[in-house]
């Protein structure tokens, strides 16, 4: 009974974004109950407003000195604040598309937005987690909301199947993660990231302690790899991406990736940075397998959502490769890659949602046939997105890949870099295939869009950003590097 922390309310404001978001969730949830049908849109606008305010609150906390509160369970540093802003921003963009999708497919329900906000809260907890317990709880908040979001289209057999698969595999991954955490706790005697860091950095560790640390580490890496969808723990990714409603797929493939990378940074880099030699080998295998499988299997896909799922797997491989290098600039490159990936992924899924109509999902590659004739502007946008994903200069995807490869080469893994480049070239084929069917094939069936102006505008800005940031990448690269 002696080690009770005094609870200091004066530091509470450092967690203001989280506190505000949770209050906003409760308000939106209750308000939605009393809104009659013509006013249902209010829920959407309130959700956007809460996300905006959360982002502003997080922005205000940039530059605060690194502080750890709530009994060493919560950390506020620049990385947490910047990640929170990007997650809120990408969720806001995703919600613009989501509204169009939900109204077209008659899935518009207030609970959808509440669940998105709850997932956002879970991600913020993960990003700011400084003990294994809070990281795990954040992950569970995120995962539970995502399971429900996928199953929200319960009339579709594909969505229910995807939700069930994701749920079962997610539960196994959580179990593995918890098992690894229990091992780390068992040997180091603490669930605190800083305590674990001091323990694992201790040079006089007995070999039995090292063994248990390693044992726990393997389970932690597997758990994180499951959540990221790295090969060989990727089985759920294609099915979930294809089966889930496209708006959920879009959300799933964007902000949660930042949260998963943040968790990786907190646990592996900050908590077990001293054991880098052990976990970098594991990540290397995961990264290479992901890039190889993601690049090759995507060639056979005819469904564009499934193709993007495999493309995600290979992008995750690149991100993991940044952590293999073990230097700060390598971690910075990985963070830069995540942010770039999110920008591209939002645009790519936005493109699919744009052409969604009641009873029609534009999710076949053949649906995009002859798009350049029917709507040349959006065909051009898709061209930009696909070229950027393939890593063609001057688009931003090129710099992300280049930056990672630079770090990999300077860390001395030249053969790895060569293999990765070969697979990147192979993967260019399937991105170009989409461009080919847009520009060089014709179709009588013109895809038209019923989307409102905001969707078109956001999509265009997004695609232009891919080009603009590609031409002036300095700010983003500096931002990513400044986080460590």
């Amino acid at each position, binding site marked *: 009974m002696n080690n009770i922390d005094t609870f200091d309310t004066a530091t509470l404001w450092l967690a203001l974004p989280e506190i505000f978001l949770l209050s906003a969730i409760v308000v939106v949830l209750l308000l939605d109950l009393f809104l009659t049908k013509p006013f249902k849109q209010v829920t959407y606008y309130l959700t956007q407003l809460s996300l905006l305010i959360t982002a502003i609150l997080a922005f205000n906390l940039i530059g605060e000195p690194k502080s750890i509160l709530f*009994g060493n369970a919560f950390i506020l540093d620049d990385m947490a604040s910047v990640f929170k802003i990007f997650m809120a921003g990408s969720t806001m963009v995703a919600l613009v598309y989501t509204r169009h999708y939900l109204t077209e497919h008659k899935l518009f329900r207030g609970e959808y937005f509440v669940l998105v906000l709850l997932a956002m809260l879970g991600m913020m907890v993960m990003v700011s987690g400084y003990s294994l317990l809070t990281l795990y709880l954040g992950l569970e*908040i995120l995962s539970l909301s995502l399971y429900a979001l996928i199953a929200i289209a319960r009339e579709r057999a594909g969505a229910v199947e995807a939700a069930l698969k994701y749920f079962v595999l997610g539960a196994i991954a959580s179990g593995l993660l918890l098992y690894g955490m229990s091992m780390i706790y068992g040997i180091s005697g603490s669930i605190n990231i800083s305590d674990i860091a001091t323990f694992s950095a201790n040079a006089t560790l007995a070999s039995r302690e090292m063994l248990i640390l390693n044992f726990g580490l393997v389970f932690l890496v597997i758990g994180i790899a499951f959540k990221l969808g790295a090969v060989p723990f990727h089985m759920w990714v294609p099915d979930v991406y294809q089966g889930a409603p496209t708006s959920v797929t879009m959300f799933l493939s964007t902000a949660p990736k930042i949260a998963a990378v943040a968790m990786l940074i907190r646990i592996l880099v900050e908590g077990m940075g001293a054991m880098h030699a052990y976990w970098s080998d594991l990540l290397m295998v995961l990264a290479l397998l992901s890039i190889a499988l993601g690049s090759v299997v995507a060639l056979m896909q005819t469904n564009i959502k499934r193709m993007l799922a495999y493309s995600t797997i290979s992008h995750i491989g690149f991100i993991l490769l940044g952590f293999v290098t073990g230097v700060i600039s390598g971690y910075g490159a990985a963070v830069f890659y995540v942010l770039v990936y999110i920008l591209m992924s939002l645009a790519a899924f936005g493109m699919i949602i744009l052409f969604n109509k009641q009873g029609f999902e534009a999710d076949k590659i053949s649906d995009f046939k002859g798009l350049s004739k029917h709507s040349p502007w959006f065909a051009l946008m898709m061209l930009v997105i696909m070229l950027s994903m393939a890593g063609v200069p001057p688009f931003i995807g090129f710099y992300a890949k280049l930056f990672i490869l630079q770090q990999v080469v300077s860390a001395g893994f030249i053969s790895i870099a060569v293999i990765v480049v070969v697979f990147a070239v192979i993967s260019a084929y399937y991105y170009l295939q989409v461009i080919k069917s847009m520009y060089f094939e014709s179709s009588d069936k013109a895809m038209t869009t019923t989307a409102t102006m905001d969707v078109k505008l956001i999509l265009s800005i997004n695609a232009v950003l891919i080009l603009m940031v590609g031409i002036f990448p300095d700010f983003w690269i500096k931002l990513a590097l400044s986080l460590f």
Partner: protein
Amino acid sequence: MNSEQTIFYILSFWFIASSLAMIFARNAAKAVLFLVLGFFSAAGIWILLEAEFLAITLILVYVGAVMVLFLFVIKMLNIDKSTLRAKFAGYLPLGLIVALIIIAEMTLVLGGAQFGLEVMPSPAKHGADYSNITVLAMQLYTTYVYPFELAAVVLLIAIIAAITLVHKKEATYKKQNISEQVNVRAKDRVRLVSIASPPKEKK
């Protein structure tokens, strides 16, 4: 071997045995009952660890509420056992290999050499006046207040998700409109129809 160790081994044996029996049980209801036994044994081990409150909670919440609910669900669902068995047999060889490898690796790592009493002394016992619940409460609302709140959020999500996925609008439920019932007038409910009486038959 002192009495505490004997109790520990008995409980552990039943814990492992009932867990195995649960996995291999052919009947889902039996599997649930084996799980109940497993929970009881785990609760016993927790009492040995002086975590009385957790042990009682495990029995009250999991055995008393969750598992009973499970039994009801299993009895209500008509689970086709034969298809389940067929899938199970198909995956058995691969699953067995993976399980054996994991067991072998875990026994190599988690043996007495790593967690034995020589390297990790057993924690000191508390006196009779020690209250597990007091300590738990003190910690829960001070040091662990943040995780505690987050756990509450998890529960909130569970509620929202469950209702979202199960609730169907209009289709399944009928509700009373009380103001309509109160304001009802006789002419809304009773319709007077004048029917021409048939001519009387002459006798």
